[in-house]
């Protein structure tokens, strides 16, 4: 079973990202489970959401304390929240940022991938400068680096479940799939 934790801010589509990932996994015949940490939904306030993916029915119903993958939709959160708390050393950290990992101020020694999901989202007219909608872009990058779900099932999930701007969202996912950069283990 693979456990993924999403970090974002109210209004950025964090919960929808975790749900779309679940839909994509289901499309590939896997068993998904996705749920938000239901806290204070305020535009701008930190939001956490979780997705579990397995080949068989999932037998646990708790929040995810030791994720295999952490996805950060908003780089601003890196300064205020310990996004890598409990992240397995062998895990993956995917961050929406245009900075290289060593400038992110995080001490995670495992695999890191970055993508400028904000730039991509805005380029496709998704959200505003104040509140970019980066969830579909980040999922495109996720498909590339996670090895869990393929881009086709992500695109199909977007087509089925994203209510507005389906084409722009699919294009953003494809764009991010192409532009995500991976960084092997940082040795400092």
């Amino acid at each position, binding site marked *: 079973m693979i456990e993924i934790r999403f970090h974002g801010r*109210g209004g950025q589509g964090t919960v929808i990202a975790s749900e779309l990932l679940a839909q994509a996994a289901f499309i590939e015949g896997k068993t998904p489970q996705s749920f938000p940490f239901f806290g204070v939904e*305020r*535009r*701008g*306030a930190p939001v956490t959401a979780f997705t579990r993916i397995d080949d068989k029915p999932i037998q646990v119903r708790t929040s995810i304390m030791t994720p295999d993958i952490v996805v950060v939709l908003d780089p601003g959160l890196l300064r205020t929240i310990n996004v890598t708390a409990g992240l397995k050393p062998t895990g993956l950290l995917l961050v929406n940022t245009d900075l290289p990992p060593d400038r992110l101020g995080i001490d995670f020694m495992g695999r890191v991938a970055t993508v400028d999901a904000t730039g991509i989202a805005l380029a496709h007219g998704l959200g505003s400068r*104040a509140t970019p909608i980066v969830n579909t872009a980040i999922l495109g990058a996720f498909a590339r680096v996670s090895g869990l779900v393929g881009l086709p099932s992500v695109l199909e999930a977007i087509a089925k479940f994203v209510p507005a701007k389906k084409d722009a969202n699919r294009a953003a996912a494809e764009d991010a799939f192409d532009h995500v950069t991976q960084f092997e283990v940082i040795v400092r």
Partner: protein
Amino acid sequence: MARLTIPYEEYMRSGHAACPGCGATLAMRYLLKGIGRDAIVSIPACCWTVIGTPFPTTVLNVGMMDSAFEATGASISGLRAAADALKLEGVTIVGFAGDGGTVDIGLQALSGMLERRTDAIYVMYDNEAYMNTGVQRSGSTPRGARTSTTPITEFSRGKVERKKDIMAIVAAHEPAYAATVNVAFPEEFVKKVQKAKGIHGPRFFHALAPCPPGWGYSPEKSIEIGRLATDTNAFPLYEIEDGKYRITRKLGRAKPIEEYLKAQGRFGHLRPDEVASIQEEVDARWKRLLQLEALD
């Protein structure tokens, strides 16, 4: 100190959890500037329950009593009774509830409190839907507005019913004082609150509290939208004292309602005929208000 048009002292703090550009936080801020320190505010389940930060912190520098959703009117009767029984002098008791918590689930308790002539101030901050739970329609949502429970389709054109006129309902209870206030006009907001503070008996405020995510506009426009609400006569500013109506902001000619509607995503779907129908409703309500003001 520079010349200020409203009192400098603050009675609430930063660090609260309101959305950026929230009108409801300004409503509380200006209310307390008018009330001053010696107050207890009763707040039911509403945005402010959560805006007011989790345990162990509180945003208000005055007392705050959480109450059940439908019971603000009763809660302030209880606070007033205790203040009198405990002989606490000079304490202002305030109820601060949302629109749903007042016109829908809380209407009975409000009516009871008014009928009992409780010596307290009840403020309804009106963001025109159940915002804390994600913009579901309330009795105070304007006709035609999109909410999560009045979606827009070919057949469903947003809220069907008209906005419940809470001021008319309150006026029927013959309150000691009632007024509408708008965060876009802080000077008048504070002045009316200071006036009400000096009056004994049940007093009521209908405070417009623009809401960026709920109304569908970018946060920096909150004050602009608030201004437009009044200047298009969608939200007229007036007061009722011992039954006498007085309109406190009258423009030569009101701006067309369209200017207010098209600035908000919740009205983005309206066709010209629907806009015209809303204009008619606004004009009729304004005309009636003028007639009420003419009554001596």
